[in-house]
């Protein structure tokens, strides 16, 4: 295989070999289901492995192990958070939910589904950097509000919300607060003893862990109804076969993330942004300059279209993504760029570069230099590119 420059780590990450090492024996040696303590030895060992993984991940959030359940990933976690709370409180307390406009699809579409079922949803707008306004949020909360769901770090532009203030506001009003931390877990400090949040979506796929495993933190006594029927797994909140290799791999993946690594990602991110601004004219940063996830750079290149850029980059083995409508399967431009007040033009030429453990500073330099060349060439043939 030719050299690949993978800069799409917000979408998925390469598995770390050390994660593979811990999950392999769970497929070949301790492959059984997790049995109760009255089961056979293999099953008891499997249960121990599952519970140890749960304990480690809960601990990483400052939570107790009975406050963390495993799911199949971020999408399921957010579905359970929104629909589970709706089911538990809809009839009892009210049918009003608030989410931000720039949430990732699992939250956004869970909210839309609930709307069809008779819930009222407010889609809270954001400012030019992607931040929600606390006062506006406060004004939207009514006695019928049962849940506020606002992400921790944005999937496209990396903006990190002040979830501590949001949580304090919600708790002051007696409203549950869910945050999607898919892009911040282990990368940005998040401790439930400090931040009053009731539900947190996390996933291994952004952390060099296995795909198909995620988790949901559920603060003690949070009303939540089961939406996946099956057995009594996961404290009877999520039926279905325990993904024990996934769980153990997730815990290992989380354990491997260090403050030094996060610092290194930030340096690569900042290098991408500063190099682009030095080498390429007519560019615009999407998101906040510093309050952004360590792995995320998102830049609009005026006068050129994103799919054309990504296709040229692909010819060099460089993988990135764009908010351009032409790139998406739905042919819809990024709802995040639209949410921060960007027009179609801003989404059209936006490129997201997200770094991970296996990227190097040399790769960053190569990618930006290649990008500069491609943008220059595309601008030469653009009716808007000539000054």
């Amino acid at each position: 295989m030719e050299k690949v420059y993978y800069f799409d780590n917000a979408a998925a990450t390469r598995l770390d070999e050390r994660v593979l090492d811990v999950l392999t024996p769970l497929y070949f040696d301790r492959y059984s289901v997790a049995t109760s303590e009255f089961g056979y030895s293999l099953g008891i060992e499997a249960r121990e492995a599952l519970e140890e993984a749960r304990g480690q991940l809960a601990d990483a959030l400052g939570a107790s192990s009975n406050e963390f359940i495993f799911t199949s990933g971020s999408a399921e976690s957010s579905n359970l958070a929104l629909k589970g709370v709706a089911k538990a409180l809809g009839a009892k307390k009210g049918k009003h939910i608030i989410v931000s406009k720039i949430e990732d699809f699992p939250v956004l579409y869970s909210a839309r589904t609930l709307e069809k079922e008779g819930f009222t949803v407010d889609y809270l707008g954001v400012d030019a950097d992607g931040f929600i306004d606390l006062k506006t949020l406060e004004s939207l909360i009514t006695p019928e509000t049962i849940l506020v769901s606002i992400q921790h770090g944005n999937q496209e532009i990396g903006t990190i919300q002040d979830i501590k203030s949001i949580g304090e506001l919600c708790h002051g009003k007696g409203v549950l607060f869910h945050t999607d931390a898919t892009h911040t877990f282990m990368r940005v400090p998040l401790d439930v003893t400090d931040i009053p949040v009731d539900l947190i979506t996390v996933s291994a796929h952004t952390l060099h862990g296995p795909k198909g495993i995620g988790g949901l933190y559920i603060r003690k006594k949070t009303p939540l109804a089961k939406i996946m029927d099956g057995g009594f797994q996961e404290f009877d909140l999520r039926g279905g076969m325990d993904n024990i290799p996934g769980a153990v791999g997730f815990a290992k993946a989380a354990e491997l993330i260090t403050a030094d690594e996060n610092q290194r990602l930030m340096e690569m991110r900042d290098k991408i942004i500063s190099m682009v601004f030095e080498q390429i004219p007519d560019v615009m940063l999407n998101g906040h300059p510093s309050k952004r996830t360590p792995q995320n750079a998102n830049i609009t290149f005026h006068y050129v279209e994103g799919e054309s850029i990504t296709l040229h980059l692909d010819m060099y083995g460089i993988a990135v993504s764009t908010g351009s409508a032409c790139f998406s399967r739905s042919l819809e431009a990024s709802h995040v760029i639209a949410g921060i007040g960007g027009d179609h033009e801003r989404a059209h030429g936006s490129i997201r570069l997200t770094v991970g453990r296996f990227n190097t500073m040399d790769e960053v330099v190569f990618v930006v230099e290649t990008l500069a060349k491609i943008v220059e060439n595309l601008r030469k043939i653009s009716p808007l590119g000539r000054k």
Partner: protein
Amino acid sequence: MASPYNDIVLEHFKNPRNTGRIENPDGKATEGSPACGDMVSLYLNVDPETKVITDIKFESYGCASNIATGSIITELAKGKTIEEAKKITWQDASEALGGLPKIKAHCSVLAVEVLRSAIQNYEEKHGLVTAKEDTTEEIVRKRLKKVMNPIKGLDMVATHLVKEIDINDGVVRIVLDLPENHQFANAIKEDAIEKIESLWDINKVIVEFTD
């Protein structure tokens, strides 16, 4: 590489032919707009005697299929008479490129339309438009199909933005199913006016919004 584009498309995308601009061209046109997505401009020079397209150039602010179609369309049109060039269809361009992904059709249609518009521009500028037909709702609708709805990334007719069209004594009134303060209201309005006002028997275009 498992690309949705075949090798011919990729080759034209990588090395587009006839790119750039002609200074003081005999005919020119632009389709699409930066506010709404892809945009393509086309310039041509025509031999006044033989009506053969002697030079043709295009510029694209678009995706791969837009660029590749712009490239192939200039190749197909160059050396042909304007009557022959008018007959070049999207199918011809797509066939010459060995096929385009269906979902990308609208990006490449723009590149075909711009050729026709540039020829029309040449004809209008050189007094060659003979058959003047009265503007009908159908003609207006057809022109509005070239205006993109940036909310959906598809044209404003297909996305049901056009609620009403009235034509009365040279005045076209269009009602759009969009609030006036919508983020894209102005861009769509300007685009729609630009497409309609050049019709020979129209002297005023009014765009109204619902609320």
